[in-house]
């Protein structure tokens, strides 16, 4: 009788211990929350993650509404609204500490950069990179790299030298980054985009203007090269000067533009004046 009792007892202990000793017991998985592996291991999810980067452009402080009030009051356009304690002040370069739209623009661009970094870091590591969808994966990678470059270029236009990071943020990182000289940023990004140019197809293949195509990448590269090579007001010294290797970059700009023209993939408006005329008569540019 007693023996039977002890046998039973030990059986139970063993049963429960076997569950506990399995360290995996505490590991959890939820099918609704996706990790980096699951998101970038699946083409559909990876595409939607890149869409998430595009979506950053649609935020209210950015291209949805407020961004149009920046960089106005120049020889080309003027905002007629008076200072209103809000975004109009930014138009007139009269922002105060209460105008938090500037902070929002900064936050949104860096948020977009981080989203792009998650794609840039994870796509080459994922199963997609060498599988049957290798081309698609590379196209997504190219889009993310280009978008990152685009965000940084806007940041530089507005603030000059800014903190520069090339990887996604991890928990133990040093978050307080110093400003990086814009020349270094431009050089890195322009080179980066060269590497992904081949990944992104021409519009004739993508059949849409909603996503980045090769012409966009080349065009952005050219633009950034021009900005780098041209004169800009420097933060620390207040000099106005060109990027350090400016001759090279003028060449890059010229070459990129030439390649787009020669490719035959796009038509061009033959008259520069037409751009302004179309804009001010509210007609579409049909070329």
């Amino acid at each position, binding site marked *: 009788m007693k023996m039977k009792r002890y046998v039973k007892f030990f059986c139970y202990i063993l049963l429960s211990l076997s569950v506990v000793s399995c360290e995996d017991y505490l*590991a959890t998985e*939820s099918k609704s929350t*996706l990790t980096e592996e699951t998101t970038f291991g699946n083409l559909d999810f990876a595409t939607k993650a890149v*869409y998430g980067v595009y979506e950053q452009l649609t935020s209210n402080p950015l291209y949805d509404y407020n961004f149009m009030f920046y960089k106005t009051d120049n020889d080309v356009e003027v905002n007629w609204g008076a200072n209103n304690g809000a975004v109009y002040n930014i138009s007139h370069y009269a922002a105060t500490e209460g105008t938090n739209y500037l902070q929002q623009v*900064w936050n949104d661009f860096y*948020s977009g950069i*981080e989203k792009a970094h998650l794609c840039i870091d994870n796509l080459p590591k994922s199963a997609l990179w060498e599988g049957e969808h290798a081309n698609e994966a590379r196209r997504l990678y190219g889009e993310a790299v280009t978008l990152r470059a685009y965000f940084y270029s806007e940041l530089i236009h507005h603030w000059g030298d800014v903190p520069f990071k090339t990887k996604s943020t991890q928990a133990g990182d040093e978050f307080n980054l110093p400003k990086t000289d814009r020349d270094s940023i431009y050089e890195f990004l322009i080179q980066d985009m060269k590497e992904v140019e081949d990944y992104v197809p021409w519009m004739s293949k993508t059949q849409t203007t909603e996503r980045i195509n090769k012409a966009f990448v080349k065009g952005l590269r050219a633009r950034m090269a021009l900005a780098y090579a041209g004169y800009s007001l420097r933060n620390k010294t207040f000099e106005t000067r060109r990027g350090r290797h400016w001759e090279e970059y003028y060449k890059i700009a010229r070459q990129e533009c030439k390649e787009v023209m020669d490719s035959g993939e796009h038509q061009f408006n033959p008259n520069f004046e037409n751009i302004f005329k179309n804009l001010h008569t509210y007609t579409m540019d049909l070329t």
Partner: protein
Amino acid sequence: MKKKWENDVSPFKGDVRKIMLIMRLAVLLTFVLTWSVTAGTYSQNARLNLSVENAAIEQVLQEIEHSSKFIFVYESGTLDKSLKRSIYVKNETIDAILSQLFEGTDVNFRIDDRQILLYKKDSFLNTLERPDAPLVQTQQPKPVSGKVIDSSGNVLPGVAVVIKGTNKGTVTGIDGKYMLADVPADARTLVFSFIGMKTQEVQIDGKTVVNVKMVEETIGIEEVVAIGYGTARRKDITGSVSSVGGTTLKDVPVTSAAQAIAGRMAGVQVTKTEGSPDAEIKIRVRGGGSITQDNSPLYIVDGFPVDNITNVAPADIASIDILKDASSTAIYGARGANGVILVTTKGGSDGKGKVSYNTYFGVKEVTKSLDVMSPYDYVFYQYERRAVEQMRATNELERYYGDFLDFDLYKKMQGTDWQDKMFGRTGTSKYHNLAFSGGSKSFKYNISLTQNDEKEVMLGSGYSRTNFTVKTFHKINDWLTIDLNTRLSDTKVKGAGTSSNSRLYHTIQFRPVDGLMDFVDSSVTDEDFEATNSSIVNPVDQTNDDYRRVKDLAFYFNGAATIRLSKNLNYRFEYGTQYGQETENRFYGINTTNVNLYGYQPIVAITKNDIKGYRLANILTYSKRDFLPGNNVTIMVGEELNYYKRERLIASAKYFPMYIDAKTALTNMSLGTADPISTTDFPPNKISSFFGRLNYDYKGRYLVSATFRADGSSKFAPGNQWGFFPSAALAWRLSDEKFMAETKSWLSDLKLRASYGESGNNRITDDAWKKTFSITSGGLTVNGDGDGAIPTPIILPGSILSNPELKWETTITRNIGLDYSLFRQRISGSVELYKNTTKDLLIKATIPSSSGYSTQWQNIGQTSNRGIEITLNSLLVEKKDFQLSASFNIGFNRNRIDNLGEVGSWEQTARWIVTGGPAGDYLIKEGGQVGQMYGQVTEGMYSFDDFDYVDNKYILKEGVVNNGLLGGSYKLMPGALKLKDQNGDFLIDGKDKVIIGNANPKHTGGITLTAQFRGFDLSAFFNWVYGNDIYNANKLFCTAAYANYPYNNLLNEMNLEDLFSYIDKSNGNVITDPAQLAEMNKKATIWSPLMNNIPLHSWGVEDGSFLRLNTLTVGYSLSASLLSKMRISKLRVYASAYNLWTWTNYSGYDPEVDAMRSTPLTPGIDWCAYPRSRSFNLGLNVEF
């Protein structure tokens, strides 16, 4: 001989071994002692011959009986059946024979004439005095007799009646009667004692008949309380545990056990956040440590953890024990930091089966409504705001409401009382409870069925719940017992309440009069009128179109097997499981504001939640008393696994046909345009634990206990999953010490205890430690945004940076308590001091946004709570016909934010309204408290002395504070709201904010009074909260004329007599002459309501202290004698009232409110909370 015996006392001899112990003894002794009155000579004179060879004792006795008049009376088991004796005697006295027979055995005998009582030497019968022993006395002894009954009037056999100071006594018989033959004249007191009842001492006072009514031991040190993974006697516990018994709770006419405990235990603050039937009931034990996470305590019902106790019927509860300090909660490790609430449901009991039926029927009415402007004041104010603001011309108003000069007609009109239409109906409550319980020593059962049906005071609001509970206890053999417990609850809620979508302000602010439309068949169609008014809609129409049905089915099963491995060692295996399914059906019709963004067409949403959980525990308990003399120890070790998972599905569709009704839409969702269906699989919550406890005491005088628990939780990253939670406590029973001997007469018990321990809080967001992405169907489309557009979901990373280093929030508690009991527990209670520190608080630390994130969860905060709790229970009067008892508890708690890391401080916005509300209305700062309201101070209104009148404009003078940044429709002129400048810059902005209120009370508590007089019983329960402030957002919002709400009504705070007004009543023009304006407004006391942006200022923060007469019950129980004829054992009728009266200075609906609960940082806001009701009930308790 035998025959005579059989005639006289036939049921007696043969049944000796069959009758229960107590009955046996009772009858035995009654017999023995009553017969002892007659002087015994037969025994002295009788001579016997006996010749028996090697026979069993029983045989010998039978021989003796055969050959004499003697009768042997003894308990079974007294005689050793295997013992054999030989006796050869001739002509011997019985005394000698028996001495020889029982020599060397442990059997004694006592001869009373013909009866011979046999008993074992260590039986208590040994202590009764031999009736033939000589007594030293100075006067004649007298007999005293009487009858003992219990509190229901039933007779009580087996009660020991002893003459105080002696061992002389007796035991009551089956009829409850006793007889003491020789009570010495100098004996003054009789002591009546019985297990489970309060021992009573009664003065003899020369009486010959002393009858006593025994009362159950309910308060006092013999009480057993539930502690983690076991039970203990209250006198032995070393930690801080407060309890409420089921008998106290069963009469409170509320549907939820959580609500029934409000104010009954010191240090436990219970707030029903609003008056709706399914309102969240917030329970906080000793304040709350966390500032960003949930501070709810751990709820355990019969050993199984549950989300909350709202679906436990009060009638099913045997007791609720709340563990407050770490030495009692550390055994729950990672979940014990905010206290543990242990609910024990009723099991069966020994004794014959009992059927009880309880019912009540009640009515409810709303307790208060807010005064709004009268029709005349309303139209005048609407005219004025348009005239002054010039935003909407007054023509539009006059088109609907008539010419200004005719406004006097409105003075005679009665406005529609929308609050009455919404909350004015009489609600009803119906309650039925049927319970069967009973059992024997080896099987006990309790089956209970409860039904609650509530029709609430608000239109369309109702609640019903069915509870079915089965609890059985089965002792299979002497080493195995099985407990099985099943609980099923089915809850249905009807109605959407007032706080979702902020519906309440529509009731307060909807126009009281419709103007011309009431009188003429005008060309103005209803739709035009409504269209200009779409931000505030008819509340009755809106509520009728706001359909909500919730069905919540919850099933719990617990089973446990206890195996007695040896005399001191027990093994217990527990398994429990939980299934729940909650479905919410929601429909928004065309009269609700939710459809405004979706083509004004109805919307349907169905949400389903599926919950699954289980629990496995193995517990080993070793308990030895006197392993060294006086030293007792109990050791418990255990292991547990907990699992909890939820899955959710949301299906919604929009653009239904306009006039469809709710039920048709819900059953034909294809009529609408479907939104993508959202399914969520929440990560399961798993906890794996090891724990142990050691209890040691020396003679009950020095007690030590220590616990330890290791918990691993799936909410943290691998490497940080395990937390360790130790605790230790000491207690010293001062009253047992020799130096306290003189106090024994009045001090029944005094125990000093101290404890220290750690427990954790793992109620944090899931997956905060890892990088996760989630799918959102945002506004993004591909293929343009025209007809071919396809909405596409996108995948986004979390907006808060993950932190794999996250660990538990840990609370360290230190507690010192003194439990006292005076005058044989007539007065008892405790005093406690505690200090809790919660460290490693999870705070969203701000990080530079160049990282791509603006915040990250980090364990950097620390808060502390310190306080005093005092409990006092007293039995003021205890007479035969009248008892009065009172109990009182009070808790003082003060919390402090000790550390917020680098963040230092921040302002938290409650955001009770989407636009136009205050920003940064709570200040979270090191050195401050959680719940400090932050805003400007109200100075009143601007006077004419503050302005110069130049060119028909009011120009603010130098040195007068400028409130102009309020912007919008606020105009800086006399009569406008004026706030106080705090920093001397004459401008009101964020820098002028100061702390204007604190939601934390200084103290809370409750008082209970119970009285019994003959068959009547009365109980009154008061609870209070003192010293807290309430942020009256309703008042701030409903006294401002928002531009977006063109026809809103205002609270009567803004009535025309007190209001500063700008319109000339004779012609409707805006007054431009300052002198005339000043003259007209010389009696004005309240500023103009013209403002769009509402700041939080001190006028909106009010004292929320209150004293509430929470429950009042009067009952009458029919006497036992009357009932026994009907075969009913108990019948009681009663009347009770709940929330009868509240004394408070608060101007809103009710001071017990907490509307913005998504974060613990914004407590005490009254915004659109469902008004409360008071109820009156009539009930019946019957027991068969």
